């Protein structure tokens, strides 16, 4: 098996007294989509943010995160991103007061040529709306902008947090198609609640429960096991379902039998 692009070992994150991640270990394959699954509040977003160095300063992060041979936890976020760790956050986080063109221009880097051709080929809408304020775009268009911003540069790994959250079904399909095409050239670590999207995109899956890895393996295999998905994610069928919420899970013990 080829070397993983990302290795997470014994990652623990404590924020405001809550032990959100309690020794999470997994790897991300150098190709395709690895999906991070779990009920709400188990620490999926916290994991991505810890990898990219965005844990709040008041938080405490322990463990090892490596991209290739390079240790990431001691690095500052902007350096990680410049070194090829692309991050698309939950809720898009486009700059609402800036135009589409300005949002994209922010992602340009000195000394490299921004791949506008690639971005506009994937999202022609962004080219047409370049002078429009990002805050006036629809949710789907904002998501395209958030992904497009990251794709302006070459990445070694993309971290994408719930890209289909709150989007209409048609837009969900469009976003999934784009991620499918993106994943042909760059590995993706995806947090996703929509299991239909997971089934379409994911090759590997890591399931978190109460801050620990409860299951890791072939994503398609996981989705075929109805009893397993029900016990891990709170759903029994893949089509269009999203895992049930588990708000109190973050600081509690892992679920048994998962």
């Amino acid at each position, binding site marked *: 098996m080829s070397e993983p692009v990302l290795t997470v070992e014994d990652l623990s994150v404590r924020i405001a007294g809550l032990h959100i991640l309690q020794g999470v270990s997994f790897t991300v394959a150098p190709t395709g989509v690895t999906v991070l699954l779990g009920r709400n509040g188990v620490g999926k977003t916290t994991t991505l943010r810890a990898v990219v160095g965005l844990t709040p300063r008041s938080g405490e992060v322990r463990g090892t995160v490596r991209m290739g041979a390079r240790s990431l936890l001691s690095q500052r976020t902007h350096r990680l991103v410049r070194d090829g760790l692309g991050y698309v956050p939950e809720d898009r*986080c486009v*700059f609402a007061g800036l135009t589409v063109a300005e949002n994209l221009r922010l992602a340009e880097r000195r000394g490299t040529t921004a791949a506008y051709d690639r971005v506009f080929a994937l999202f022609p809408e962004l080219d047409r709306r370049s002078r429009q304020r990002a805050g006036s775009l629809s949710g789907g268009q904002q998501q395209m902008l958030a992904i497009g*911003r990251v794709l302006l540069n070459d990445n070694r790994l993309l971290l994408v947090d719930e890209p289909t959250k709150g989007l209409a079904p048609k837009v969900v399909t469009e976003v999934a198609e784009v991620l499918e095409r993106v994943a042909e050239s760059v590995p993706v670590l995806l947090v996703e609640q929509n299991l239909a999207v997971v089934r379409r995109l994911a090759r590997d899956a890591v399931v978190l429960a109460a801050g620990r890895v409860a299951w890791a393996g072939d994503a398609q295999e996981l989705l075929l096991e109805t009893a397993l998905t029900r016990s891990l994610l709170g759903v029994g069928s893949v089509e269009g379902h999203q895992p049930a919420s588990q708000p109190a899970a973050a600081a509690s013990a892992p679920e048994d039998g998962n």
Partner: protein
Amino acid sequence: MDAIILLTLTGLGLAALYFLVASGLSLVFGLADVLNFAHGLFLGVGAYATWWAAGNLPGAGPDGLGFVVAVAFGVAAGTLMAVLVELVLIRPLYSRTIEQVLVTVGLSLAGVALLQATWGADARPFPRPAWTREVTSIFGAQVPNGGLLLIVAAALVLGAILAFLRWTRYGLIIRAGVENREMVTALGIDVRKAFTLVFAIGGAAAALAGALGSVYFGTVSPQQGGSLLIFAFIVVVIGGMGSVVGSAYAAVAVGLLQQFVNYYGTSGLGDICVVALLAVVLLLRPQGIAGKAVTA
């Protein structure tokens, strides 16, 4: 009618002074979340450096080009001070609000004490060009030239800051950073360089306010920065923390209100009305006139 024109223009002069102090304060707070109580010290440093340069610096003087050199020296000193404060004192304390407040309040007090120890606690006459002591007749009103100078300077600074924010890459980074600093970092940008830059801009504008404010008042004193800072904070809150244009609107509102009420009411009542205006804005529009959009 003459009185109204005079009050309007002197009110705008006061507004210009507030804006010069508040614009930098607002940018620093909007981008870096730093409530900088030492901002008044940059004003004091600018004023005293200009005063010192006018009497001692070769090429500088109280008149003509020499005065321009003296003001440029004052602005450079205020800018340098602001950059040093950011790099040495504030940078290690980002995200630690209480420590920031303690450090900047302490620095402000220490700075005033240092100015007093060096040049005395009393106000000193400020060397200024003769024409700034004169008045210009505008529609029959005799308006002090020092106030007009402040208005012109503030308008130029506003235009320059807006052009910088709209047309340069660092301006873009600052506008984005005021909205969502973390996301700027997540795009591979070292936002700390922008922090230093906004401190430099704020320090320069405050130092200019110190120099031109001293021209307007005719004196320079160690307490000057602190007393102006209170109204600058009010302007920042009314305008919207992080918004330069909001600060400009708020400065005009505060300056005119203060001037008119102090003239037609009792002296000092204008200050109370300004605080009342602040309370009303906080109740009705807590995000301020312009919210957090830098150039709105």
